[in-house]
């Protein structure tokens, strides 16, 4: 007789790791997205080049390769990360590169008209960004950020490859110990979907909050 409740507990423990990875990965990705996204719009060539290199590198190489590098190759250069750190680092940097393009696109999508109104009101570059462009651009970024966060959630499944005991990993353990594929993998499919649902609910609520009174502005 298989102790299913015990094994489900194991999967839930993995789910906790998945949630932890997702949250920390998203936080890092958000920071990187703004740094690199605004960096690409900078007037300074060096900043632009740096941001572009970061974005193209992390979007260009596969997340798998980045994970394996962070976990197996970095230690050879003397940086030893715990699996969790390596996971958060690879996920955050990878998704952050995609987010940077979202930030850039959203900032550019705030039309020239708003920019000109700022000049006519004599706002400085910083004031323009801080008070006019970013508050509007953020609203435009949110839906795509939501997608990015879900992408990140899904990518956490890949960290099972570096023996971080996330949900997918625990499901694999349970599968080996019990011989059942359907139960553990069916369970985590549903759990992943619920987590994705939670993310989109959260972002949508946030969006509604921020968009209050803005009806009709965005099409």
């Amino acid at each position, binding site marked *: 007789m298989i102790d299913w409740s015990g094994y489900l507990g194991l999967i839930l423990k993995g789910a906790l790791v998945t949630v932890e990875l997702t949250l920390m990965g998203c936080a890092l990705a958000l920071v990187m997205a703004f740094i690199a996204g605004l960096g690409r719009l900078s007037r300074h060539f060096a900043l632009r080049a740096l941001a572009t290199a970061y974005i193209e590198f992390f979007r*260009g190489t596969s997340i798998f390769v980045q994970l*394996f590098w962070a976990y197996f190759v970095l230690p050879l250069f003397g940086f030893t990360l715990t699996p969790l750190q390596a996971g958060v680092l690879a996920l955050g940097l990878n998704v952050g590169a995609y987010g940077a393009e979202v930030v850039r696109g959203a900032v550019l999508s705030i039309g020239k008209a708003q920019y000109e109104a700022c000049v006519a009101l004599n706002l400085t570059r910083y004031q323009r960004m801080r008070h006019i462009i970013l508050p509007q651009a953020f609203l435009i970024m949110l839906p795509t950020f939501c997608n990015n966060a879900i992408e990140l959630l899904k990518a956490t*499944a890949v960290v099972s490859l570096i023996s971080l005991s996330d949900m997918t990993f625990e499901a694999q353990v349970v599968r080996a110990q019990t011989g059942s594929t359907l139960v553990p993998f069916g369970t985590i*499919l549903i759990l992943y979907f619920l987590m994705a649902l939670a993310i989109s609910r959260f972002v949508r609520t946030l969006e509604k909050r921020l968009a209050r009174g803005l009806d009709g502005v965005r099409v």
Partner: protein
Amino acid sequence: MEWDWDFVWKIMPTLIEGVKITIIATLLGSVLSTVVGLAIALLRRSPTRLISMPVSFAAEFIRGTPLLVQLYFIFYVLPDFGILLPPLVAGVIGLGLHYGTYTAEVYRAGIDNVPRGQWEAAKACNLTGGQTWTHVILPQAIPPMIPALANYFIAMFKETPLLSVITVLELMNQAKSVANSYYRYVEPMTLVGAFFLTISLLSVFGLRWLEKRYGRIER
């Protein structure tokens, strides 16, 4: 651990075998996701809720759960229900379905971006529904989508390493196999990374070109 060029030359033929499979899987997956995406996009617009609702839910579910887990399902669980697919076929179906839910969004956006006036003009010209789609809406909707579609094909390309869990010997799997037999991770993983990066950088130029060629339609 230092870099060993002899080793690189030795493993190159094996890795190239993997590259072939990777490319085949990506191409077939792209074709399938293009078709699946269009089907999803059209079915979701169906006025019959009995069609649009389940399709929407299924698409959301597939989009919210990791491809890795879906591949396990397709390959290891479906046979219990009498569906036995060869590894590459299972992989292509997994990629096609998963990315089909993304391309469906691209189609939706492309179709929504055709101004309402075009639908109305088509009606005022007394075109039938089918004529409106083929002569007015799709010719305007599809060219601007091409860059976004291509973007997903590139993303799919970078996710092919997941196929290793269902025994497809693509590039990443070959590299791991090589690494396992010689206990050297640095060269194979770096080569895989370099390969992905090269293709991605090339595709950046390709995308730019596509965007210029198809990106906007003058109104």
